[in-house]
């Protein structure tokens, strides 16, 4: 099986064609008070207080930034409890009990178009900062820091590639709300004074192409927005790979794309920017995929941030009964994090939960077939890094640039001997950090 293999079977057919189910009225939501980037927080509300939809209830403190916390439903504040976060630690979460009245906070008012037209970069940055917008594709990097760049940006790229298998929430988002994406991109282009916008999708996603081109042609033909179709392989959604294939710009390891005049946003983030600028909404809901081969009805959902995954699994008719052991993965099956319990919640950056049956793979000794070296998108030699880890040779790990690994998981995916190569490379990254 010695070959470069970048085709990963995508299982998107499980959910792609199904209509998005709206589930916006959960009994309670839980809001993370801490996350991977923000360790401390201040809370402005107490148990029993009434909050409105979109109200600021506290602030998270990160290393060099602050993030307001917004209520995603109207209701009463409950207790602070601990819930699992994607990082695998238990973090503080605040409970809000839904009063099903959906009263909007007074700050949630539409911004008229003539006001928006006058916004400049600083205004936009301030809005995104107030609305705590972060990269919704999973990175969680504050968007306003990206937008506040002082470099000249020639291209803004919306990343709608979604190359992870099983996921189709971005796909549904574009089908359902193409205008939000395009308007979001328009606002970013306006803020950065950039002439050229680009929406990158996968080549085999024809419906997306049709929807986007039609909307752009009919309503936004004055904007210079291009829809590009990129190759149907994994990890095409890696930002560096998107820039390389869409624009021919190669961003070397360790450098920021901004210095090459290009900036990328995930498609959900772009829609979030639209909602923040136009409707003054923070990220209160998101498109979410609940799928996998061990769940009864895989489905895309539109949910409030803070919805319990257990609720959603119940909505999907629960686990299949054929399996004794399942994996609950937050994020995609290639890069996602497996959790020890389904008692987790949808946060801003959770794109999906995938319930997979547990398959044990029989590991053979490495036969040095080289598939991992051929396939690595970062041009590393995973097998050599693995051997260095086994010998604990840190010099070698450094020389082999283990730190450049993006943990896409392709090396373990292609391995002829079913060795968990990615795990070794991850260990190397930790060791040389």
């Amino acid at each position, binding site marked *: 099986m010695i070959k470069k293999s970048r085709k990963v079977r995508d299982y998107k057919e499980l959910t792609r064609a199904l209509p998005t189910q709206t589930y916006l009225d959960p009994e309670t939501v839980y809001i993370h008070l801490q996350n991977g980037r923000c360790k401390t927080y201040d809370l402005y509300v107490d148990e029993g207080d009434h909050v409105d939809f979109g109200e600021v209830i506290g602030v998270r403190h990160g290393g060099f930034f602050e993030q307001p916390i917004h209520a995603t439903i109207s209701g009463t504040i409950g207790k602070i409890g601990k819930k699992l976060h994607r990082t695998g630690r238990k973090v503080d979460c605040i409970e809000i009990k839904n009063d099903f009245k959906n009263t909007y906070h007074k700050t949630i008012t539409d911004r008229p178009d003539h006001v928006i037209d006058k916004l400049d970069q600083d205004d936009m940055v301030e809005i995104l900062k107030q609305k705590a917008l972060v990269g919704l594709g999973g990175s969680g990097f504050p968007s306003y820091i990206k937008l506040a760049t002082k470099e000249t940006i020639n291209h803004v790229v919306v990343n709608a590639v979604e190359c992870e298998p099983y996921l189709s929430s971005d796909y549904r988002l574009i089908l359902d709300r193409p205008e939000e994406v395009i308007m979001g991109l328009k606002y970013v282009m306006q803020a950065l004074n950039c002439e050229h916008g680009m929406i990158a999708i996968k080549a085999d996603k024809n419906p997306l192409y049709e929807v986007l081109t039609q909307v752009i042609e009919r309503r936004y033909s004055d904007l210079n927005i291009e829809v590009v179709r990129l190759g149907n392989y994994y990890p095409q959604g890696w930002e560096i790979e998107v820039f390389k294939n869409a624009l021919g710009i190669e961003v070397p390891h360790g450098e920021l794309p901004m210095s090459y005049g290009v900036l990328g946003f995930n498609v959900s983030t772009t829609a979030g920017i639209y909602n923040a600028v136009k409707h003054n909404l923070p990220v209160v809901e998101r498109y979410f995929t609940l799928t996998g081969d061990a769940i009864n009805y895989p489905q895309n959902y539109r949910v409030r941030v803070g919805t319990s995954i257990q609720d959603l699994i*119940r909505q999907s008719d629960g686990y299949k009964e054929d399996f004794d052991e399942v994996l609950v993965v937050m994020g995609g099956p290639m890069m996602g994090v497996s959790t020890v319990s389904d008692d987790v919640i949808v946060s801003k950056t959770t794109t999906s939960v995938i319930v997979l049956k547990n398959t044990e793979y029989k590991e053979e*000794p490495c*036969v040095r077939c080289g598939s991992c070296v051929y396939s690595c998108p970062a041009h590393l030699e995973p097998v*050599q890094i693995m051997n260095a880890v086994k010998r604990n040779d840190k010099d070698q790990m450094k020389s082999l640039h283990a730190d450049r690994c993006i943990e896409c998981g392709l090396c373990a*995916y292609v391995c002829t001997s079913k060795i968990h190569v990615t795990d070794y490379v991850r260990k190397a990254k930790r060791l040389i950090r």
Partner: protein
Amino acid sequence: MTNTMPKIIRKTSPYLRRPNANAPRMMRDVTIALLPATFFAIYSFGLPALWIILTSIVSMLVTEYVFYQIQDLLQGESFKVINKQFSLYNFSAVTSGLIYGLTLPDQTPLWVVALSGVLGILLAKLLFGGMGQNIFNPAAVARVLVVVNFATLATYQTNIDGVAGATALSMNNADLFSADVLNHYPIMDLFTGIGIPGSIGETSALLLLLGGGYLAVRTSFEIRIPLMYIGTVFVLALAVAIQQGLGLWYPLYHIFSGGLMLGAIYMATDPITSPITKPARVYYGFALGVITFIIRIFGALPEGVVFSILIMNMFVTSFDYYKVTHPRFNRKRSLIFIAIIILSIVVTLVGVSYAG
């Protein structure tokens, strides 16, 4: 709805694996690809060929089985009939045994086959730590043990005219550039293997190529190595042919005779004993070709394939050395490589003009 709650367990990403990729399948493919050549060997050399092949496979399998049983006993484990490390299931020992058997002359005594097979797998594979750890190709080591220890016992006999002790290549060894050899072995016969003396599995280039095609379709071997290997021998022979005023028959004769096809397609491509990166595999195939050709025309032995494979096996670690290895070609390395190709053609031609 959730009546029975499954147990949620934790793992690390990725959670998917490539379907249809496994090491036993890769080894098994090599065995399957060799079947046409094996049947042809039995057809043209009769029962002795069958006994040689069976002996070589069984000797390697039994050695491996006994070795791992002893290892387990030494580690204080209780005796189990099915040993975990025993690699019958992943086909690596069977594959080695089959290749080794096919490289042997048809007159090899069975005890020589068995003894060298046992030593081959023991010295080249098991003592290094088993599958994936060896640096030398077990089949090549076993074959070389036969050459260096039992050269006079392992002799060739043609299946048609009964001239003992000569293969197409050893004819060539006696008289370097005579077209005379064509009278005995026309190119077409060398290609199909009908009526050609030689080691039992190496006579038919056609069937070996057929197996190579199968391996290429199944991506069970690295096609760059045999292409570079055979291509290099062809180009060097072509250069010599042009210099000496010989026809196109000369390079064709070189690539179809001897163990080149068998060695290039089935032994040199053993992933365990070849480098890991694409460029290194190209360099490796090229080096094999040069060494084989030089042994063939300047060496005392008629056959350079197994020796070149063992020699280059030693250098695999330097191809893979972490400070020099690179997973992609770049301009500088390619230029150096082209310079080395030109240099080796020049060296060969100078050598030939002195020898001739």
